[in-house]
């Protein structure tokens, strides 16, 4: 048979990579990974599970927290499946009217994969918090958003006019530093080098009762990362680092600590110039400013069940022809899309407190170049599946009616 002859001449590696068997095995392994990763969410936060199961090469799942089951992680299974899809589902597949639908489906899945890959590599996700307006408080305005997980160290130079210049050290420089490690960061504009060491994913801030003048009045102590229960209860990790500033001219060393969310743990003057160093969640600027006018949190009457969260905001683009302020209403399922950024209503607060109190609103901010790709992929896949299914159904119906016709014509059965 022709197909057999072709198979004999084929590269066995390609044949294996594109085989149905590999597809079935990979799909089952992926199913296993997804299933156990889902069960594991009883014990770990969703972020931990994502990192350990789906963004890893290998993972050992403990069934019922006891019995080890080794699993291939998402970073192994998904690329293999992608290769299998390309080789088996596009390259090696017989092309013809009978496989047209399936071919389209495979293209759709490739698009989906590609979109997810682009999202994984190039998207930026974070959140911003804005308060309702109150005179003398600028927290009703924001033009940047913060990462959920990633930290950055910032050296701040306070200028005479009251403004501040920031020098940022990204997390890649320090997130792997142990107690004994340190890294020295240089910048031409700074009169000192910044030495960072002992990164703590979660830490406690303590006062230093024995601090002498000129020494930092704070201590930090390493703490366990928050557990799933704590995370569910709204707690999160607060990172800390030990910092030493080494003056370039004199060699004098200023030691201290930085602690997430605090800007006052390491402030000093060098010469006449005030400086401070802090650690905060990584921040990205937006090309527009958001001002919250009002946040409305409605519940269904007589219940505590949320009916609608809505933020009324004014959005002002920083530049461009239409740099006019615009009133926008952001609510669940109705995000604001502006200049490749999308703002979603994601949270609010304070949760407790009397009605009528000043509220804040939290927006999830996403910049994802492949935002709409899943939609296109979905359409392609749906079309492919329909083409294939309808073709099969029609063939079946035709065969059935032929069979019936044959059965009813006398003599034809013999």
């Amino acid at each position: 048979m022709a197909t057999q002859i072709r198979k004999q001449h084929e590269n066995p590696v390609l044949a294996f990579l594109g085989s149905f068997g590999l597809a079935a095995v990979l799909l089952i392994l992926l199913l296993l990974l997804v299933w156990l990763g889902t069960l594991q969410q009883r014990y770990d936060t969703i972020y931990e599970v994502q990192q350990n199961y789906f963004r890893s090469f290998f993972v050992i799942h403990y069934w019922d927290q006891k019995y080890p089951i080794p699993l291939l992680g998402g970073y192994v299974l998904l690329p293999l499946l992608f290769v299998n899809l390309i080789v088996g589902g596009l390259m090696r597949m017989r092309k013809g009217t009978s496989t047209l639908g399936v071919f389209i489906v495979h293209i759709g899945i490739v698009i989906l994969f590609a979109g997810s890959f682009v999202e994984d590599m190039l998207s930026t996700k974070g959140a911003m918090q804005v308060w309702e307006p109150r005179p003398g408080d600028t927290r009703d305005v924001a033009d940047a958003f913060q990462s959920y997980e990633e930290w950055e160290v910032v050296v701040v130079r306070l200028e005479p006019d009251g403004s501040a210049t920031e020098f940022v050290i990204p997390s890649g420089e320090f997130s792997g530093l142990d107690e004994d490690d340190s890294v020295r960061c240089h910048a031409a504009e700074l009169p000192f080098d910044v030495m960072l060491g002992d990164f703590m994913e979660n830490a406690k801030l303590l006062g230093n009762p024995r601090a002498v003048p000129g020494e930092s009045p704070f201590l930090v102590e390493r703490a366990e990362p928050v557990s799933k229960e704590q995370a569910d209860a709204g707690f999160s990790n607060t990172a800390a680092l030990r910092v030493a500033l080494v003056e370039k001219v004199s060699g004098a060393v200023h030691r201290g600590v930085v602690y997430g969310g605090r800007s006052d743990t390491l402030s000093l003057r060098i010469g006449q110039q005030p400086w401070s160093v802090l650690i905060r969640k990584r921040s990205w600027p937006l090309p527009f400013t958001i001002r919250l006018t009002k946040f409305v949190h409605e519940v269904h009457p007589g219940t505590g069940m949320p009916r609608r969260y809505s933020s009324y905001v004014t959005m002002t683009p920083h530049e461009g022809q239409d740099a006019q302020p615009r009133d926008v209403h952001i609510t669940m399922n109705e995000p604001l899309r502006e200049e490749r950024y999308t703002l979603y209503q994601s949270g609010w607060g304070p949760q407790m407190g009397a009605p009528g109190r000043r509220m804040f609103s939290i927006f999830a901010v996403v910049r994802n170049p492949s935002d709409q790709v899943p939609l296109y992929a979905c359409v392609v896949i749906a079309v492919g599946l329909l083409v294939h299914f309808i073709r099969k159904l029609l063939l079946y119906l035709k065969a059935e009616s032929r069979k019936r016709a044959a059965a009813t014509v006398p003599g034809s059965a013999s």
Partner: protein
Amino acid sequence: MKLFDPSSSVPARRLVPAVVLSIAAFLLVPGLLDLAAPVQAAEEGGPSTPRESDWSDAVVDAWAKTPVQQGGRAMPLYTWARYALLRVNHKTSCETPAGRRIGPVEWMLDTMFRPELARTYRCFRVETDEVLTSMGVEIEDRNKADRFSYDELLSGRRRLDRLASQYRMKEERDRTRVEGAIVALDSAMEEFEGLLHYLDWARSGVDVSRSEAWVERFGGRKSVPASEALVPLAPEVRLSTVAILEASERRDPKNPMRVDVALHRALAALPGLDDMFASGRILALFPLNRGQFKQLKTLHAEREALSENPEEWLSPADLLARVVLWPNLDVAPEHLEMLRLLEQMGASPGDATSFARQTEAFHAKSRELATGLGEYDGIESEVAYMRANLLGWAKHFFLLALILVAVSWLWPNRWLMRIAYGLTVACALVVAIGITWRCILRGRPPVTTLYETVIFVTGTMAVAGVTVEAITRQRIALALTPLLGWVGLFVAERYEFTKMEDTMPQLVAVLDTNFWLALHVTCIAIGYMASLLTGAVAHVYVLGKVFGFRKADSGFYRNVARMVYGLLGFALIFTTVGTILGGIWANESWGRFWGWDPKENGALMIVLWSLAMVHARLGGYVKAFGLSMAAIVLNIVVAFSWWGVNLLGIGLHSYGFTAGIQNTLYVFYAVEAGVFLLGGGWWLYGYLQMKGAHAKG
């Protein structure tokens, strides 16, 4: 092995329909009796006696259609009473001591207006007598699980309350069965008491005898109807409330007393009003009038009306608090009128003529107010929907169709088959009508809650089943459809009776989008349905092979295998597209396409398993039998995705933990695993035999 003896196939052929028939008869007869019973009861009712529940049809009807605000929506009292009775009695009717069966509205009216009577109804279902032992109640000659009256349980009430509050601290999944039953009984008694004492104030009137000035003001009367006393006394109550609050603040500035506590203390001087505030709470029967609504809306927008949600309807207690604490808000004359009517009905429920008149007036007023707010629209239709019980009827007729199919296996008859098919089509239509009716009532696409997934899956399964039968004419789908239809509606009913909650609840903010609900949820539900149908047909293949059914008829098995494969393809379209649509929706509302949330993962698992099945089949790794075995596993995957992940209690979709469901789910897993093992064993046996034969040969 006897099981695989070729001769056993003949008796098995006879046996299967016979077993199905007897099981079906066992299930159907009580069901039909159930349906017929209310009619019977009504006929037996006869002349009324004062010691008996005897509300006229008109009264029951008017109360059934009276709107009440519950769970954030206006619902007919019929619906409220139905679920309240269900929570107490675990069924939707109740028996009086005289043996008469009454419906939910009659039960509610008795409890509200004739508490002394309702206290004697054995309407508390207690799951195990260990609950009574824990309460310290001894009642002889009862079953382990039985029904008791309020009066019978009363002596253990305090102990029950103490135990229940202790067990409520535990997570639901950590409670033992008895602990769960104690909490359930306590909640049921609390709810019953809320209704029992709802109108105490109406029966007692307001005792104004503490102050001579008051007595003088009301023309020398010492007891005054609340509707008459409320407005004139409000300023004084307000003053003393303010005084109590100020005194408390002086005493302990850091922990000021709550306003409602202060009001309650201030009312101590006015027995009657005191009752109204303490126990007139369970039903929010007073819709606002439009003027009040506008006024409150404005105040709310300005955030002055601190604790008032402008859309909230009022119970008598709320009304009292409103009149006392919000002097600048108008008292609606309609509300005082409704209060007066309740009072009159509460004071003399025995006078049938005037009670009927007052009921009618009360209903008319509440309808007028609710219509003004635009919230009466679906009320009467909802009562009609509830009373029509379409899904209940469809369930019984699915069973009847199944019986006809089974009979036709014993005595082959073309007409029997046709009637069974016609009946199944009719049932599918009735379920479709029921689902459409619900959609109209709610103004929503068909699936928004777990309960609705069940009826939708059943309805679409029935439609798919009759379609498949029309296409294939194999009589396989003809037998499966009524069976699955019956199972589906049975599960829906059990689910409703286990949750004992309104099945048309309001939706949380994230679900409030008809577009995505219609697109993603419907698609996924059809995917569940088609996957389960695939699995169901696969059972025919596997069990048929194992038990040697139509052993020689290879054409039969070829057709079944084709159906499995075809349905799998159909399922794959909907599960795949539905799952991706879910991601697209998540991207629209949260800005992420995939978050590894358990429900998302569950849907993905169905897709992955189906895809693995298709690829394994195409690669020739499995054939018809293997594919059918895999389709049985698909059932388990669907069950995990549909119900199992909700029970994990994690993630964004964990909206449905209930202990009873967990057990049912485990039974389902076990049964499916059993079928799989049976099939596997059979295959292995055949394989070994074949090997043995080869070796011999």
